[in-house]
């Protein structure tokens, strides 16, 4: 057992919904993240999957301490990061970095690549003395596979994939222990996506990084993750190793999600049993009582409306699942066919 580098305990983040401009009135709360707990071990990749509105991006913001949680704790090596401020918070920021989704909007268009990648050193001058920064920036560019001579260029002179590499170089500059990747490849083309994923893997091996890898693409998450957490409407519904989630899912939502992913193999077209969910994700302002998935679940019983299913290991399964009726079901068929 390696040590836990980040521990999240009962994390809750609610956003008030307000009306009025001068006299604000709170009319409800968006329950973006509603009681999430997990651990991140040193050197591992934890994949977080879920559809839009499940709270995975809010989770990233709270992990990065860009938002303060409504309640609950995010512990970095036992220290509650949401309580930090000033110098302590700045020091912590060196350890946890963020890679964002959209490479087109996440880089300041009016800064050169050198300034962009050098900015972490300016904010944290103790990391690198002034004279060595330029060299460091060039090393970083080289590391992420960009030409160090392009240090004076502007972001718009690069393609999407290259910009994402710039973003990664920025995140790496301070040699963090954890990188939170919020949909880092979903805005990229297929062939470029693979390049960036390989880069992320290479960097992890080289620097022993831990990743929290947030994405909606289940194939991408499987490819990179050691463990996977599935989120639905602000809660985690199933957590397990990559094998446990993809080969032996027990929560109906995970099963439906997996079955809906198109597999790039036309021969599987007819022998693939797709679980069709009806309807859309309910509003996070007033989520359903009991189990949040029950309104779209084919297994739902009265119990599901009354009692919130806990995320725990249930009989016949080897990993935690938040369903009263969790059971295995064969979803990913390719192994038999191939």
């Amino acid at each position, binding site marked *: 057992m390696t040590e836990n580098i980040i521990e999240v305990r009962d994390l809750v983040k609610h956003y008030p919904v307000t009306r009025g401009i001068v006299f604000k009135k709170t009319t409800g709360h968006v329950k973006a993240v509603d009681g999430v707990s997990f651990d991140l071990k040193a050197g591992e990749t934890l994949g977080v999957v879920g559809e839009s509105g499940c709270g995975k991006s809010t989770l990233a913001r709270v992990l990065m301490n860009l938002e303060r949680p409504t309640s609950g704790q995010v512990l970095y090596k036992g220290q509650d990061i949401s309580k930090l401020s000033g110098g302590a918070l700045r020091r912590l920021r060196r350890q946890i970095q963020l890679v964002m989704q959209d490479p087109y909007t996440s880089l300041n268009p009016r800064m050169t690549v050198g300034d962009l990648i050098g900015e972490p050193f300016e904010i944290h001058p103790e990391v690198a003395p002034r004279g060595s920064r330029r060299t460091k920036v060039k090393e970083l560019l080289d590391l992420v596979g960009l030409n160090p001579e392009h240090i004076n260029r502007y972001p718009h*002179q690069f393609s999407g*994939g290259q910009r994402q590499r710039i973003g990664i170089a920025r995140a790496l500059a301070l040699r963090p222990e954890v990188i939170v990747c919020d949909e880092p490849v979903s805005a990229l083309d297929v062939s470029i996506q693979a*390049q960036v994923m390989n880069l992320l893997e290479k960097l992890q091996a080289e620097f022993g990084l831990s990743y929290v890898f947030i994405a909606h693409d289940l194939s991408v998450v499987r490819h990179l993750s050691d463990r996977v957490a599935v989120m639905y409407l602000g809660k985690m519904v199933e957590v397990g190793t990559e094998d446990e989630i993809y080969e032996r899912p027990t929560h109906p939502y995970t099963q439906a999600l997996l079955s809906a992913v198109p597999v790039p193999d036309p021969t599987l077209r007819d022998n693939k049993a797709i679980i069709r969910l009806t309807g859309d994700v309910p509003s996070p302002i007033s989520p359903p009582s009991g189990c949040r998935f029950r309104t779209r679940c084919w297994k739902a019983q009265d119990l599901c409306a009354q009692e919130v299913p806990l995320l725990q290991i249930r009989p016949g399964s080897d990993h935690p699942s938040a369903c009263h009726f969790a059971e295995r079901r064969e979803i990913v068929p390719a192994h038999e066919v191939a």
Partner: protein
Amino acid sequence: MSDPSAASLVSTPRPEQPSEAGAPVNAGLPESAQKQQKPRGLLGDAWIDLRRKPLFWISATLIVIFVLMAAFPSLFTSGDAVNGALSRSQVKPSADAWFGYDVQGRDVFARTIYGARASIMVALLSVIGTLLIGGTMGIIAGYRGGWVDALLSRIADIFFGLPFVLGSIVILTTFNGSGSDNNEWTIMGLVIMSLTVLSWPVVMRLMRSSVLATKEADYIVAARALGAGTGRIILKHLLPNCLAPLLVYGTIMVGSFIGAEATLSFLGIGLKTPVVSWGIMISEAQNYIRVSPYLLFFPAAFLVTAVLSFVMLGEAVREALDPKLR
């Protein structure tokens, strides 16, 4: 991209699709003839870009001339701008007096040259004042949000609600009513103040909305995640990306302020003879436009040229500050 050393100066092709551009991903491809590159920033690049623009040189030259005119009018003319001989009233332009003489027999050329000082000083200082006050208020309101924003916006609304002419009449008659013996600098200061006080809300709104739009940008979030403080976020990230509309509006304001100064003079509450300004000249000339159109033409031509130079300069600077347009 065959020429990487020049590529950051010369605009890289910007086709519709996002995924081309740029040079090969792989480092270490033939990148010969690489000059020792100095680190550059936005301002350095903007300057390099500006230097290559004829538009910039033309407008800058004109502005330098106008500024010299304002500072040392005697360099340009030896004529007397204030005293005239009625015998020469409305004499047409000639080799002696290039721009002719006005109703009171004063040399129009000399007057136009001397008029630059008041007009350009009033306009420039008012624009700078307006941009500073409005811009600062806009940044504070937009960035802080909440009650600060509400308060500042309501204050701005109050000033915004004052009709421009009425407002300046009130301000100027209070401090510069008939019978007051303020010297020309005090009057100029008062005119500048009234223009600034009545115009900043527009700039503030402009700045505020641009800050609001930029504040939520991913790169601001990214900077916060790196641990950047408020000062750095405002100076390095917000300001450079919010400045463009302000610059454009500022250059347009230069023109309208020269006109506004003229209006105030015309109403008798702004600058007064013997002070010379283009505004005063234009308002004086309009009664004689049929008989002596040149009385209007020359100061107006100078005014238009000056305004145009500022607009062109603003345009050039705005383009230079946007790497995408280089």
